[in-house]
């Protein structure tokens, strides 16, 4: 209880310095939180992709964001060429999945794992390759490109605050994807096989599961998720070759905060990061400035990890890289 009192005291002490005072404008405060949840759910999708890949092959995929960026450019070029928005989205998501599967099967799996991080090095190389390829193919003319939102950007009045239709759409799409994933992993045979292959490859091989196929499937799902998240983020940030790098950082942070092996943890972590980013952007006191947004988020996460080294939802020894 003393701890709670101390935390409350600390919060009220620091709240004095906040630039706009939250208690003077509750609707702004709630709107910022809702915004944070909306953008955070997109981060959570990328974080989920990272967790999926980590669980299937115990590595951090640095190329995750760049795949999303690349497929978003492909979707954009399809839309510009006159394809219907829905069709080009589906095509680009399929491309994202195929790209991830081919890259895993063709490159990552082939590199002998002398150290746990050798394969991470391959994903960093892929990060470079896709970033560079996008610059080469698409970075002509004016950037950032305008990427249309499938939901539109009109404001919707929700009583205490307003959100844009795009934010509501982001929220509902992410929610649907998360529910679908949890159904897939708990209720279907393939989902169960994937979890088994990730948890105990030897035993699953004995049970007749093709482990490599399951791992490739995990990567493909990660690629599809990353592309879907990139489509939701691009209308907000605009489409340019670096737009997914900050998202990748936030997604890494969210996944680590959630304990890197736990999908619900990734969702919670991603949303927390989104909310934190939005609140810091609005309420950061003048003596701190907006440049300190990223360092503050990172330091908060480091502080959480000092107390819980395995993340909020993680298990001890769960994060072996």
């Amino acid at each position, binding site marked *: 209880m003393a701890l709670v009192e101390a935390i409350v005291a600390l919060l009220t002490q620091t709240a004095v310095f906040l630039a706009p005072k939250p208690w003077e404008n509750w609707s702004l405060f709630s709107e910022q939180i809702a915004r944070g949840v909306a953008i955070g759910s997109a981060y959570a999708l990328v974080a989920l992709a990272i967790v999926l890949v*980590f669980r299937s092959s115990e590595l*951090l995929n*640095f190329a995750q964001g760049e795949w999303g960026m690349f497929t978003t450019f492909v979707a954009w070029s399809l839309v510009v060429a006159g394809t219907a928005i829905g069709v080009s989205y589906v095509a680009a998501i399929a491309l994202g999945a195929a790209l991830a599967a081919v890259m895993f099967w063709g*490159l990552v*799996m*082939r*590199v*002998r*794992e*002398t*150290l*746990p*991080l*050798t394969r*991470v*090095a*391959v994903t*960093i*190389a*892929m*990060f*470079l*390759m896709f*970033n*560079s*390829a996008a*610059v*080469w193919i698409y*970075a002509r003319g004016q950037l950032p490109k305008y990427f249309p939102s499938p939901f539109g950007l009109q404001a919707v009045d929700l009583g205490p605050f307003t959100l844009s239709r795009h934010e509501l759409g982001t929220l509902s799409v992410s929610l649907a994807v998360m529910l679908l994933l949890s159904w897939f992993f708990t209720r279907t045979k393939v989902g169960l096989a994937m979890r088994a292959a990730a948890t105990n490859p030897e035993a699953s091989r004995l049970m007749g599961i093709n482990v490599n196929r399951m791992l490739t499937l995990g990567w493909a799902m990660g690629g599809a998720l990353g592309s879907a998240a990139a489509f939701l983020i691009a209308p907000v940030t605009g489409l340019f070759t670096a737009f997914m790098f900050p998202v990748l*950082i936030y997604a*890494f*942070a969210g996944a*680590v905060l959630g304990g*890197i092996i736990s999908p619900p943890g990734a969702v919670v972590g991603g949303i927390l990061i989104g909310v934190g980013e939005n609140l810091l952007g609005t309420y950061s006191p003048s003596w*701190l*400035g907006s*440049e*300190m*947004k*990223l*360092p503050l988020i*990172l*330091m908060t*996460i*480091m502080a959480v*990890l*000092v107390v819980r*080294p*395995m*993340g909020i939802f993680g298990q001890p*020894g769960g*994060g*072996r*890289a």
Partner: protein
Amino acid sequence: MTIWVLWLVTVLLCIGAVLGPGGLRWRLSALTLALITIACLAPFLLPVYRVSQLTRMWSLAISLLGLNIISGYGGQVSLGQGAFMLMGAYTLAILTDGAEQLGMVDARPWPFWAVLPVAGGVAGAAGVVLGVVSLRWRGVFLALGTFAAALALPHVLLRYDNFSGGARGIRFPATPPPEFLKGLISQHEWLYFLGLLSFLVAFGLCWNLHRGSWGRALVATRESELAAKAMGVNVTRIRVEAFALSAGLGGVAGVLYAMPLRFVMHETIEPLESIYLFLALIAGGLGSLPAAIPAAALLIYLPTDMVQLVGRLPGLGVELVARAPGLIQGVLVVVILLLLPYGIIPALGQLATWRPAWALRSWRPLAVQWRGARVPLWKGRPMAPGETLRREATDDPNKEV
């Protein structure tokens, strides 16, 4: 062109030292002597551009030595080495620019020989802080926690601009050679020799440390923390010490990196540079000290000369090189990792035992050898350098082990 002749001679000398006659100790001493001679002659034979490249290479090599201590021997993945280099670079700028940022401390510009240990100390102190904070982190958590430090530092430098010059950065005067060398060597040769000398000193330090009881204790903590603890190793202390040493070397490297630039800003060393350092170290060979040199050479030559060389291949063209150098770099990194999974220096060590057995016996289809490359574990552990994967004669080569 001279530079490539020098590198060719270097590589041939290394191969000769591995395969040549005589005792190992004799061969290694002769190799060291020959390499130091080449390194000392190089600045007098090369154009200025090549010499400044090599100066940067020595500074990166010092940083990689530090990274190898914590990651190669300590087994702790650190993606924050660039942050320590940036700290060293800013220490140099603040202490020598003549303007006052710290009041009395830097009212008068400091001499370079005083800046080097101070920068090492500042970065080392930051390393102690990071080491203590990260004591309980393992694996991915440690990798991303240290990377967070590298990401955060440039933002902090931007924010506190009365200290760091903000987005304008800090300009500082060139470091002239000491009196007794004036007239003997030019400015860029002086910086080259300062880098070379610092690298040799740092290498000697790391060599002695890793061969002594401290290094053995560090390797023991890498292999098994529990076993090391049982043998009486103070794991906490040795981890923090390794972090401090690696960060301190990073700080010294940052000073040498920034010295020829005469200017630092928050983008002098970008956060991704920390990751590239680690990538290069993997390619050079984690856990072997001389790996710092080929790794630093990769960092220098991969984005410039090697990309241009690949761009000259028929069908690729100038435009690809100009617009998408990262594509070629990525492909080159993957090729290196596929061909030399243990890195360059361990591959050199394997030369002595390597026999082209498969090539002599039969021309097995390439696909089979290709599949062999994906076997990650052998008898439950990674294959050691020099170990070959023996299969029974009747065994199906496509079967996984």
